[in-house]
């Protein structure tokens, strides 16, 4: 780009974005810095951004089974998030495929069902859900936390929108070549819709990973607790060194970040497919 005005625009835009990004990243940076501070350091001198010395104490506290069985909590959370995501994605993909490409009696009903889960989400449905979970004997089980969260209403809608926009010709072609409906799903639709499905899976995983309301209400025994739940209990509380809380928070970001890196390539493709107007 030789055009000087263009160069100026590029620089200006980059600086502007840089500032915004910096503002967004700053609290995160502070979080990392605080995870290396001891309690008196955090409260004592707010003007100091970086710790005097890098004390790994907080991370050690995390690791030692002492008061905070990190590994256990981590694995619980991971189990919940992964299973929940897997179930939601599978069920939503199948339902979305059918909803997006076939007409059948009751189609509107399914649509309405998916919508209803958005209108009355678990936080608002909390009490009936809590009571019902108790009645079917799933209180204090990880399953009790997983199941309500695997109702992927949003996923059904999202994936059905993607499926609907897939080009007809490919399906017709496959049918001509003798493919049955199941093959159409498995061999034609799935590979094409993969970016969108990955996007939804990522979103669902992150939300499930952070979930703390449902675990709070369903779980009783400490060795079943999830990371989101325990972190929520410790945040801002004087009973726990906030430096350790920061350390745990930083550690919690890692799986989510990993999930993002895995899914990164698919994001843009998914949205482009959704927006496609050319048939």
């Amino acid at each position, binding site marked *: 780009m030789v055009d000087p005005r263009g160069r100026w625009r*590029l620089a200006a*835009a980059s600086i502007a*974005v*840089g500032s*915004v*990004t910096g503002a*967004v990243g700053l*609290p*995160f940076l*502070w*979080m990392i810095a605080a995870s290396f501070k001891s309690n008196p350091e*955090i409260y004592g001198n*707010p003007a100091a951004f970086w710790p005097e010395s890098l004390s790994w104490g907080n991370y050690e506290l995390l690791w030692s089974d002492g008061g905070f069985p990190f590994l256990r909590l981590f694995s619980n959370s991971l189990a919940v998030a992964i299973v929940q995501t897997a179930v939601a994605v599978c*069920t939503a993909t199948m*339902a979305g495929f*059918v909803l997006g490409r076939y007409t*059948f009696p009751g189609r509107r009903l399914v649509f309405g*069902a998916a*919508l*209803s889960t*958005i*209108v*009355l989400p*678990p*936080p*608002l*449905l*909390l*009490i*009936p859900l*809590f*009571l*019902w979970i108790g009645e079917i004997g799933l209180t204090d089980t990880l399953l009790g936390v997983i199941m*309500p969260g*695997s*109702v*992927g209403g949003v996923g059904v809608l999202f994936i059905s929108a993607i499926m609907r926009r897939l080009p007809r010709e490919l399906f017709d072609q496959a049918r001509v070549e003798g493919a049955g409906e199941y093959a159409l799903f498995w061999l034609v639709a799935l590979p094409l819709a993969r970016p969108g499905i990955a996007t939804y899976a990522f979103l669902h995983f992150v939300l499930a990973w*952070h979930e*703390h*309301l449902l675990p709070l209400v369903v779980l009783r025994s400490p060795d079943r607790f999830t990371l*989101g739940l325990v*972190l*929520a209990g*410790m*945040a*801002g509380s004087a009973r726990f060194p*906030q430096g350790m809380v920061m350390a745990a*928070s930083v550690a*919690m*970001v890692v799986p*989510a*970040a990993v999930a*993002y890196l895995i899914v990164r390539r698919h994001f*843009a493709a998914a*949205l*482009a497919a*959704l*927006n496609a*107007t050319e*048939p």
Partner: protein
Amino acid sequence: MPYAFLLPFGFLYVTFWAIPAIRGLSLSLHAGEAFSLGPFVGTQHYERLFFDERFQSAFAHTALFAGLALATVLPLSLITALLLQASWRRLRGLFRFILLLPGLTAPAALAALLALALHPTAGLVNNFLLVPFGRPEIDWLRDDPWILPALLLQATWRWSGPLALVLLAALESIPRPYLDAAAIAGASHWTTFWRISLPFLAPVLLFGGVFIVWDAFSLSADVHLLFLRGGVGINTDRLIVPYIFLAAFRFLRFGYATAIGYATAPILALSLFAFLRYRRPADAAGGAERFAEGQRLHARRVIDHG
């Protein structure tokens, strides 16, 4: 055949949403004190809600919060997305990762962070922005008028970045022919944006809006529940979900608590309805071609009128 594919979702939906929802409806029509169903009371709970000051306060605050969040996050994300599109390509990957980070951090972490930053005596904000200028320290998390701004800060930090990324992807997926046509016709940046880009972005913006409203009424409650440790009574008149919590687990009034949730649902339904109605009117009528045709005419008009 379709039904076989619907079965798994259907099963989960019925077992873990429909049944609790219907039973909840029945519960909200009964006294519902302390784990027993109690006598049938009809719409008494809902009527009580209407006059309940706490509910009114919680609802009003949540709605206000949602509105402010919309007004802050949407423009901010849009501007950031536009800037991103114009920024140096090499840096973009880094920018995008950092912007996504807030969405990846747990609400609890954010609450802890805010609790520290907004601490009355040791917090960054008070110490950098107020005391040096001779202003008194503000107890952000407890003093009345400041709780909403704190919540707003949290929501903005959390969602502006990710939403900007989504908008960026949408911007980059606008079909080039339209933009090229406008450029050839000499349309200014502003005109191009206003008449071509924005209509394409509208569905995404609408989606973002619905999400923010949804977040205000369900997720942000998580953050708020953490703000005041043990001060459950003080701050439950700020957001809906903490109030549900209070009614149910402190006072054991399950019927009433259920009614609170159900009474709030219509708001979400309304915003959802707005989204569905306006996202792709052409699509809803079944004419994707009509939409494309409309866009072509649009572009033609822009070219003709510059």
